[in-house]
């Protein structure tokens, strides 16, 4: 896989270099994602989504786009080093990446230091970094949707079990912020490590508190552990997850134990089930078609779609930046123009939502970027 991507990147660079006999300089996109290591289940779809995006829009405002892909091995230090390499050696115009909040933050820091715009593909902690935006939904927006649904379903108390890392904290803090306003009490806060073999102890503690529902803060296949433990122990209350669990491998491992669980996600996951007038339906279906053509497999995850959206935001901003300034791609002046264009993005329709960025806010999506889905017999069903 990794080799294939590297080869692909090399070919892309090679083809683009040949084509660069043309007068105008090419646009360069630097992507650093986790193609190996524990986050690779997210990183590989990110890279495949980006391949689809490149195939969908290979030329922006008459200029070819080069895509350079690096592997950060799920390590924040490597992610930061990759970012610097992409900026200083490859002279990219925009950075994109990566799987995992810590690695994304590491790249964001480099982007700010080297004054290069970055489009993050994962949620990032809110900081005043004028060079970075992200296409992911803020965790709060997603968790708010879950809490709204809990309230509608008459949940009064909820137990929480999540990762003992930044992701577990993010979800927990968002839950603590949203739940009291909805009159819901959070009664337990249990944590486990991604590499743990069993969460029976933590699940027992939650069950002993008799909550109406359990909310989990995990991601990917390790996120299936609480569902399996709760089912083994015969827990009968409501099950709620979050967007980190929207993943085909999660369904495979969790099996029947997560049946009926409700989770928030970007609408792209259930594109086919959306009402015809939903703003993102058309582009989401187009993305699926392109992805199938490029990768010869259907897309079932949310991550590849973030890459696609990152590309769409970049394409729109690059068009405006090229029109507004005379700076050539590859120069600091162009990077500044591109940054200014990105943070003034207006109503760009992507697969996950409709993007409106403004200076000072890294997030650019609104309520149109989330739907609640229910896991029914191994399939996500829109639960309006």
């Amino acid at each position: 896989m990794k080799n294939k991507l590297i080869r692909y990147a090399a070919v892309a660079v090679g083809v683009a270099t040949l084509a660069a006999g043309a007068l105008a300089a090419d646009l360069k996109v630097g992507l650093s994602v986790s193609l190996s290591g524990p986050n690779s289940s997210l990183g590989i779809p990110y890279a495949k989504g980006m391949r689809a995006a490149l195939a969908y829009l290979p030329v922006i405002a008459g200029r070819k786009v080069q895509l350079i892909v690096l592997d950060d091995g799920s390590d924040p230090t490597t992610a930061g080093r990759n970012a610097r390499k992409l900026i200083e050696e490859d002279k990219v115009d925009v950075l994109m990446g990566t799987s995992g909040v810590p690695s994304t933050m590491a790249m964001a820091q480099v982007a700010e230091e080297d004054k290069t715009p970055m489009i993050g593909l994962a949620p990032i902690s809110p900081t005043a970094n004028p060079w970075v935006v992200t296409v992911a939904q803020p965790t709060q927006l997603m968790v708010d949707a879950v809490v709204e649904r809990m309230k509608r379903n008459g949940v009064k108390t909820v137990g929480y079990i999540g990762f003992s890392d930044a992701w577990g904290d993010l979800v927990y803090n968002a839950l603590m912020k949203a739940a009291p306003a909805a009159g819901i009490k959070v009664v337990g806060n249990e944590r486990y490590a991604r590499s743990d073999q069993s969460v029976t102890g933590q699940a027992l503690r939650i069950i002993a508190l008799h909550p109406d529902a359990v909310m989990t803060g995990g991601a990917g296949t390790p996120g299936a552990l609480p569902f399996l433990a709760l089912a083994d122990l015969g827990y009968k209350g409501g099950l709620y997850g979050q967007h980190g669990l929207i993943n085909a491998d999660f369904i495979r491992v969790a099996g029947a134990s997560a049946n009926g669980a409700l989770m928030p996600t970007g609408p792209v996951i259930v594109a086919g089930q959306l009402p015809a007038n939903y703003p993102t339906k058309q582009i989401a279906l187009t993305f699926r078609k392109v992805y199938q053509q490029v990768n010869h497999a259907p897309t079932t995850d949310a991550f590849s779609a973030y890459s696609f959206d990152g590309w769409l935001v970049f394409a729109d901003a690059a068009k405006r930046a090229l029109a507004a300034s005379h700076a050539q791609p590859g120069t600091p002046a162009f990077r500044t123009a591109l940054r200014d264009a990105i943070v003034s993005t207006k109503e760009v329709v992507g697969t996950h939502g409709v993007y409106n960025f403004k200076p000072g806010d890294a997030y650019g999506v609104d309520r149109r970027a989330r739907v609640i889905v229910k896991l029914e017999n191994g399939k996500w069903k829109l639960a309006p």
Partner: protein
Amino acid sequence: MTWEVALILSADGLANGAVYLLAGLGLVLVFSVTRVVFVPFGDVIAFSALTLAAFEAGRTPPTIGLVLTLALLALAAELWRLARRREFARMPRALLLWGLLPALPCVFAWAVAGRTLPAVVTIVASIALVVPIAPLIARVALQPIADASVLVLLIASLALHFLLSGLGLLFFGPEGFRTEPLVGGALTLPGGFPVSAQTLLMIAAAIVLSGLFYLLFERTLHGKALRATAINRVGARLVGIRPARTAALAYGGASLLAGLIGVLVAPVTTMYYDSGFIIGLKAFVAAIIGGLSSYPLTAAGALAVGLVESFASFWSGALKDVIVFGMLIPVLLLRSLLVARVEDEEEEIDG
């Protein structure tokens, strides 16, 4: 904490402890005979579990290619050694032992893959397929440096772990797998909390296997040869026990244990390409409690690790591993006070 909760945690802890027990026995077996802390043990566990998962998914497990490649390397090493010593008469035997023997489970696995067969057949195929892995990599990478210091052997075995775990990622991908439970159903404890039959099976397997282990060591000639090598390598050589052969036997035994552990844990935990390492590490804590030499102390240590882990996850999920590995400190203190220090003697052994 109520009684039911304590019961469930104990059952969970004993099931984990059973796994650490078997893994600990394997580690002690290899260390006492060869002085190698066999870090790739955990990877063999993961390979066994993921091979079974591949069979269940109807795929041909890539483990076959690994075993065949290793067999070729080991065969080449063995033939080269014999050729240099001009012992051509022993070559057919080497061909049989290092070439044909490891190929048998590969053929079996290849025949089994992609068919719907009873679970027993795929389980046997998975275990049989991983059994050659440890002896083969040991023959290729560890036997040539068998007389190096313990530290060198440890680093070499660590390097092998990273190699195998990288191959695991390449073969099976980053995602976790679970296999079908070997036995269904559950036993309901008073109070309504169920204990799964799989947990009971794991505990039973540990008891039966450690019993077999004991018999093997006490009653068979091969077992006695292993014990003799563990007690005194030079002495064992003097009475005609070949260290290379006992080493291969020890690695084979450890590999078999790892294969069994793999199919036992795969239905109850999500196995990733690198999950085996954590199991091996916790079994290593148990083996340290047993001083890397005593089987009964290792078994007791393994059960203690399992129980502490289970109760720790109830009291503080986030600090679970800290508590388990923290157990090492008092154990090492106690051992250094109670047990006279044995110098690691540099033994003069060739071949």
